[in-house]
């Protein structure tokens, strides 16, 4: 891309976001009696055209570049299909260890300690991690030191040394974190909740154990890296103070360090097969608060990127508990009754697998049962009655602003477009999202709530002092299943 194209791109960025025609401004000196008298144009987020932003580096990977010269900073993010779903049986944690040691384990040219010194001397920040689906390596540097910083980044990507000392230190750190698994009731809730929804075999609910981590050796990381950390598995996002053409040339030169493109990882990851069993589950631990999750498995896109019903479901959950104090759960459980400090619901529509519909809060154990009952009442009310015009407008505007924020800066835009490609999500889905959100009606929201939010299938998990929760009563009449507190290092199978 030429410098002039780069400028065009930058100018385009300034138009991205919420179209902001001047509001009907008040005349000087005039203050209306109520804020509703201030009139504003509707929110219609702009969605970028990814075409001119995508490039293919010879011998390398797709690269999205967005120039932004406001500060002399550059971000380069590499996304790889190298997540935990690729952990071999019995080696849970290998993908995460590999990603972490790409950063901490030194390179062929720089032993670990020397690499740290070099990164520090460049005032750069480099990170590497893996989640369930993919791994991410991120470089933040000064544009004046981009060349040297890219050298280090590509040394890490192509020639990691996986030095023994940092590998052992990281394994010890992982085990020490495992040892604290039961220290915080919220972490117990997170773990048991995922097991209840996804079963223990699916990647979303797999937790490495100390016996699994112990035998993982350098050669395991070398093999995992050689198999999956290859250009065929990578998508790059570059943003900041760069010239597009120049940075592409720099990347192409460095991709030469890889021997061949490698083979793509199997994709998409497997879907969960577990069928959650509705009921009331509890883990008995002493704590001033009971942690609570309520819900069931929710939705995945499954290729239905243009399905209005899924957007209507998002609006429904926004009304229920996604909108802070403007949501029904917050009003009922905090403002009206003071039972909780915070409550929220979530219904992300999964790209790789179904995400949960869930409500979460913490409460005094004596109030937990009542709060569960009230939360389920709100779910039923959303199914049984039409949302108000105010609620509909609020939920839609908040979702539209989230969408605008997705493209709110050069860094966010580049990362989002790269992630589309990593996950297999069409770029066009963003435009669909905006158009459907603008068009969704209250009737569609109610229909979606009836279809997607199913209180009769709900699981309720309570982690806290069960005797105090049970003594207060007010829990919904569900079959009760006490769960054991598990050994934090070995997580023995549930009985």
């Amino acid at each position, binding site marked *: 891309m030429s410098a002039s194209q780069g400028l065009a791109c930058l100018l385009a960025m300034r138009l991205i976001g919420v179209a*902001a025609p001047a509001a009907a401004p008040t005349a000087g000196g005039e203050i209306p009696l109520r804020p509703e008298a201030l009139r*504003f144009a509707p929110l219609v987020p702009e969605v970028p055209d990814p075409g001119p932003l995508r490039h293919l580096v010879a011998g390398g990977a797709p690269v999205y570049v967005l120039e*932004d010269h406001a500060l002399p900073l550059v971000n380069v993010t590499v996304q790889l299909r190298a997540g935990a779903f690729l952990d071999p049986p019995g080696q849970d944690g290998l993908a995460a260890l590999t990603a972490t040691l790409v950063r901490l384990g030194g390179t062929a040219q720089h032993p670990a300690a020397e690499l740290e010194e070099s990164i520090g001397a460049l005032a*750069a*920040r480099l990170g590497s991690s893996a989640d369930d689906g993919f791994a991410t390596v991120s470089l933040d540097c000064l544009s004046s030191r981009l060349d040297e910083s890219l050298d280090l980044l590509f040394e890490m990507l192509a020639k990691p040394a996986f030095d023994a000392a940092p590998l052992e230190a990281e394994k010890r750190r992982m085990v020490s974190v495992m040892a604290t698994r039961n220290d915080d009731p919220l972490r117990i809730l997170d773990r048991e909740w995922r097991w209840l929804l996804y079963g223990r075999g699916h990647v979303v609910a797999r937790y490495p154990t100390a016996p699994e981590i112990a035998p993982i050796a350098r050669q395991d990381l070398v093999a995992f890296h050689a198999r999956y950390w290859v250009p065929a598995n990578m998508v790059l996002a570059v943003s900041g103070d760069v010239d597009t053409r120049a940075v592409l040339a720099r990347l192409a030169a460095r991709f030469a360090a890889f021997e061949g493109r490698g083979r793509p990882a199997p994709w998409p990851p497997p879907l969960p097969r577990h069928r959650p069993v509705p009921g009331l589950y509890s883990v008995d631990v002493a704590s001033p608060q009971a942690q609570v999750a309520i819900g069931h498995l929710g939705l995945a896109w499954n290729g239905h990127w243009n399905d209005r019903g899924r957007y209507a479901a998002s609006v429904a959950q926004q009304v229920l508990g996604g909108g802070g*104090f403007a949501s029904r759960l917050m009003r009922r459980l905090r403002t009206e009754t003071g039972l909780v400090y915070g409550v929220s619901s979530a219904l992300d529509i999964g790209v790789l697998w179904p995400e949960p519909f869930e409500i979460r809060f913490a409460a005094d154990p004596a109030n937990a049962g009542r709060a569960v009952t009230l939360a389920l009442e709100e779910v039923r009310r959303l199914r049984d009655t039409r949302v108000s015009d105010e609620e509909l407008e609020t939920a839609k*505007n908040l979702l539209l602003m989230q969408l605008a924020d997705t493209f709110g800066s050069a860094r966010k835009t580049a990362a989002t477009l790269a992630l589309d490609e990593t996950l297999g999500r069409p770029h066009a889905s963003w435009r669909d999202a905006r158009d459907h959100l603008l068009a969704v009606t209250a009737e569609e929201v109610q229909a979606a709530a009836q279809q997607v939010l199913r209180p009769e299938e709900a699981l309720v998990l309570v982690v806290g002092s069960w005797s105090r929760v049970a003594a207060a009563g007010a829990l919904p009449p569900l079959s009760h299943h006490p769960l054991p507190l598990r050994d934090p290092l070995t997580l023995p199978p549930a009985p």
Partner: protein
Amino acid sequence: MAGLLSGRAQAAVQTGLDVEVLRLDNGMTFLLVDRPAGASVAAGWVARVGSADDPAGQTGLAHFLEHVMFKGTRTIGTTDGRREAELERQEEETAESLRRLRGEAAGGGADGARQSQELQDRLLQIAGQRRLLQVPDEYDRIYSRAGATGINAFTTADLTAYFLSLPANRLELWFWMESDRLLDPVFRDFATERQVIAEERRQGESTPTGPFADQLEALFWQAHPYRWPRLGWPADVETLTPQDAVRHFRAWYGPGNLTAVLVGRFDRARVRELAKRYFGRLPPVAEPRRVSAREPEQRAETRLLADCNCAPQLEMRYHAVPFLHADAAALEVLAGLLDGRAGRLYQGLVLGPRLASAGSAALSPLARAGWFAVRLQAAEAVPLERLEQCWAEVLRPLQQEPVADRELARVKSSLMAEGFRQLEDPFALMVRLLTDAGQGDWHALEEQPQRLAAVTAEDVLRVARTYFRPENRTVALFRRLPPAAGAARP
């Protein structure tokens, strides 16, 4: 490093911010930072009052006030502000009558009991009438309907900040709403909010070391009101009334004690006009008088020994310096030498001899004092006493000889680059400016590169010797409880 950020980059830190300062006639200050590429504006304001300014016996008042500031005004949150004001007056009179009666009638007999019951019934009746007029959460609902996000606030020991992000073309709504709640707030739902704050406290106490957080503060500070819990002591919070909140608001929320920050896409001329029109309405008030607390010198080490459901760990907390103190930059550099993957704690204790599983160091400068904390988590089977020795071994060379130029350069350049990165995100920049303004001077962010650049190895040696004395610290040791004591198994 000197060269790394001394040219273009450092200049950009100085000029890239480009803060316009607007001061209204009533004393309120506005800081304006353009970010034309975005679609929104991060907007907030800060009052220079925090938990350390709570009146004695009323700890938690600044934080409680922050909560009820979201309850609306004479216009927002009610269907009839005038009627509600009348009911509020009747409520105060009735409550006062009840207080008098209780004061007089230690043995008032049947007559006193009957009168007391009548007054209590009347209070309940008024509360019911007030509730009928309320529009719950209307403040948040108006903003959310306009697409505003991140509507929130926080209270620290020194300041209380209120902020959000909203679509750029709706900025006038922020001027309307915020000037309205500063002009005429109504502190509704006091009793319910007290329960919410109790839950907030329980939330903190549910974390592994949370139950000991207030006790550690009270141990570390001998006399300074920084020793008071941000949420207040529960017994104090029980006694707080709406009238206390009104008094605190009137004393501390005058325009001369407020700074607003806007970062995002806006027209400066229009913002200037809106600021004058909306916030110019706030009447000036006398500058509040802050208690001039000074922490006395600590003369002997203090210790907290706690058993908890947590990894064995320790915190070494040293009295250090306040925000903007001349030694703050050298102490930040010292923290940088210790902290992070390249730092001496990780390299010396985690990576090599396997004595710790994690370590960190940070300077926490408040407006009127500050502290420096080193935290270490013990590796398996390493006793906490050994970990204490480890810290002494890491500290000793820093107190004996100047740090090498190369290491110093690495830390300084990393800290300066981090300062840069704080300018990137409009919301984070807005919160940073609010915090700095609330602590005393928003210029801190601008001046940080020069302050860091000026730090020498001798400065680091000097601060390591000055502040890191055993008698100047509190040591908190957290031992893991045996499993059966911490968790009930089914």
